[in-house]
């Protein structure tokens, strides 16, 4: 039983650090800001959760586990909130997408486009708008 727990903790911690490295590669290699946020989000939620879960399994039952759960809870609340606020600030600040728009995306205001089948942007989300 102890061996199983140890093995599980090992797996969780190594997987977590692997996801951390993947997210770090993402934040370096992705082409623009809005995609880099995706890489940062992977490390914030998945990597941190896995590493802390491994530590919880390693610590056993007690005060340390409670504190680790507290850290995990705080991380899971605060880091998506911070990322969300950051992206909203960047979008409101007028940061443009850097990648080209795909051909299937139609302007939602263009009435002549008709009911074309394809990916459509959410109404009101237009990247060409300049925000004041």
């Amino acid at each position, binding site marked *: 039983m102890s061996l199983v727990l140890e093995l599980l*903790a*090992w797996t969780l*911690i*190594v997987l*977590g*650090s*692997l996801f*951390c*490295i993947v*997210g*770090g*590669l993402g*934040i*370096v290699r992705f082409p623009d*800001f809005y995609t*880099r*946020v995706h890489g*940062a989000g992977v*490390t*914030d939620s998945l*990597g*941190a959760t896995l*590493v*802390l879960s*491994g*530590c919880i399994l*390693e*610590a056993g039952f007690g005060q*340390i586990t409670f*504190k*680790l759960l*507290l*850290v995990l809870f*705080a*991380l899971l609340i*605060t*880091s998506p*909130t*911070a*990322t969300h*606020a*950051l992206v909203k*600030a*960047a979008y*409101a*600040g007028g*940061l443009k997408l850097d990648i080209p728009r795909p051909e299937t995306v139609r302007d939602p205001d263009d009435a002549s486009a008709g009911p074309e089948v394809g990916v459509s942007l959410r109404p009101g989300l237009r990247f060409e708008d300049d925000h004041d």
Partner: protein
Amino acid sequence: MFVVAMVGIVITMLLALSRAVLGPSVFDRLVAVNMFGTKTVLLIVVSGFLVGRPEWIDLALLYTLVNFVGTIAVCRFVRFGNLALDTIRRGESAGGSEGGA
């Protein structure tokens, strides 16, 4: 086991730091710094387990909260150029409506 996790976390921190140095816009740097803070929390927890003093988790909890508040504050500062915009704008809009009337 904890050494492996520490190596992975330190590599991630270096990658985030490189993005914070290179990043073309302010927001790229902000995302990288936020990620760096999260990884600091993980590093403190793991190194506490490695050294055999898991009490360092208290420090990690503190770092989590400070990182969150700091990111939000810098976001707000970059967006508005001011950390007290609400009160200023409220005063201005009140003055503007009076002038309009």
